């Protein structure tokens, strides 16, 4: 399997995204914002459409649109323009509607879109892997620096605000991290499934872990294992890699829930 370059590249990209997505998703899940990745994903779709229309790299335009979407959700929420889920819905639907209109204008409503909607990890190039690895390392570095702050705000946002922690800046940083993760994961699992890789490994880890820190590291381990196992299964079963990776993560959640149920008896 690893004799072929496309599989080696796929494993490289899958490993980075498998670790990064749950690392960012961990903080979103703790703050009960599990669906934010979905919202940002739909804005990223508008970015892809803009890229196709303007003949610019769709990944780049998706990254810009995703960051704008992530920041917009936070600003709408924090300034009281719309409550948390309404802010998400507003950005979510505007993103998908804008994407459909732009893609239609570009005359690109065809199977080419599938690689962004459902991933296309087997067509990834060396340059793609280099970009994913570099941005992934930056994302993980930022999380390592901000872990204590992000965890502290997840534990008690109001208490942190009273004590003078710049909550707005922390939230915008988390939104930007989520946006970068969505843009990087787009080629691996696709816009429609990216949020799953941010949430399912964390949900599975929560059922097995004994502290916040152990939940965080276990989430990344489950995300990595899901990505690698999913790619392996998809290679031998000739199944779509993105969907297979997410199904493995869902299976991990099922096993973790079962394990916890048996352990509790």
């Amino acid at each position, binding site marked *: 399997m690893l004799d072929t370059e496309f599989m080696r590249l796929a494993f490289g990209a899958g490993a980075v995204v498998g670790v990064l997505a749950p690392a960012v998703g*961990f903080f979103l*899940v*703790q*703050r*009960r914002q599990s669906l934010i990745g979905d919202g940002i994903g739909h804005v990223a779709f508008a970015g892809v459409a803009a890229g196709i229309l303007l003949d610019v790299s769709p990944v780049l335009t998706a990254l810009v649109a995703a960051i704008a979407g992530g920041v917009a959700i936070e600003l709408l929420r924090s300034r009281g323009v719309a409550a948390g889920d309404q802010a998400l819905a507003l950005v979510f639907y505007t993103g998908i509607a804008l994407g459909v209109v732009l893609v239609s204008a570009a005359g690109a409503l065809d199977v080419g879109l599938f690689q962004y909607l459902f991933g296309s990890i087997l067509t990834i190039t060396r340059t793609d892997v280099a970009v994913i690895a570099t941005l992934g390392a930056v994302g993980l570095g930022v999380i390592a*620096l*901000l*872990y*204590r*702050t992000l*965890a*502290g*705000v*997840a*534990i*008690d*946002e*109001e*208490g*942190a*605000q*009273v*004590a*003078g*922690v*710049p909550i707005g800046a*922390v939230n915008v940083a988390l939104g930007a991290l989520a946006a970068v993760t969505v843009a990087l994961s787009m080629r691996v699992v696709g816009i429609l499934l990216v949020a799953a890789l941010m949430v399912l490994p964390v949900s599975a880890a*929560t059922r097995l*872990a*004994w*502290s*916040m*820190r152990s*939940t*965080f590291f276990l989430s990344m381990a489950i995300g990595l294992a899901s990505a690698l196992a999913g790619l392996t299964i998809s290679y031998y079963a000739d199944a779509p890699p993105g969907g297979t990776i997410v199904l493995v993560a869902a299976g991990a959640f099922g096993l973790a829930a079962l394990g916890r149920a048996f352990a509790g008896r």
Partner: protein
Amino acid sequence: MSLAVELESVSFGYRAGQRVLDEVDLGIGEGEFVAVAGPNGGGKTTLVRIVLGLERPVQGTALLFGEPAHRFSRRRVLGYLAQRSELGGDAPATVREVVSAGRLAAGGLLGPLRRRDRELVAEAIARVGLRDVADVPLRTLSGGQQQRAFIAKALAGEPALLVLDEPTTGVDAESQESLAALLDTLHTDLGVTILYVSHEFGAVERFVQRLVLVRRTVVFDGPPGDLPGLWHDPSHTHARH
């Protein structure tokens, strides 16, 4: 005595024409232990939010240690235990992880906690009597122990003013008594100013220096002993002895 909290003719409403608080005057000296009580919907939580600078009065002035509360510059000296404090997420955060969050403002936002910060966290956990369960997930502890952990979190920031909003919600009477005794010890040992806000005050009545009853405005402000007998809470009978 210099004042930690000073409210002068403070009025507030969330909508025009509606007053949640009306002409409230309240001064809390540094080092005082004061309970603010009143019925649900009487404006207590709004009062707390104004004291902490999270809301601005529509009329009057709110000062924290002499500065306007909404732009108070030394926020790290504020310890706050919110109403119905509970963990934000599902991860099994341990007592130590929760208390460490209390060092966020004072210990800096980047990188891991320094040695001194970790010592202060351990000290705060010991003070509230949770040393033996420091590395146990908070959700496995009783309601009273969870509240102690949140108090330790506030203490870890070395606060000059500790504000507790309905700290005994969902906690049994025995734990309420124990919590009140703990606050009295902290007040005596650390000299921290404590503002205890609750719809009932029986548990802390024997410890506080002043009791303030709020029903849109201040209807009583004085030593608990001066309060008419029928206003006392019968579920804490020791309070009057």
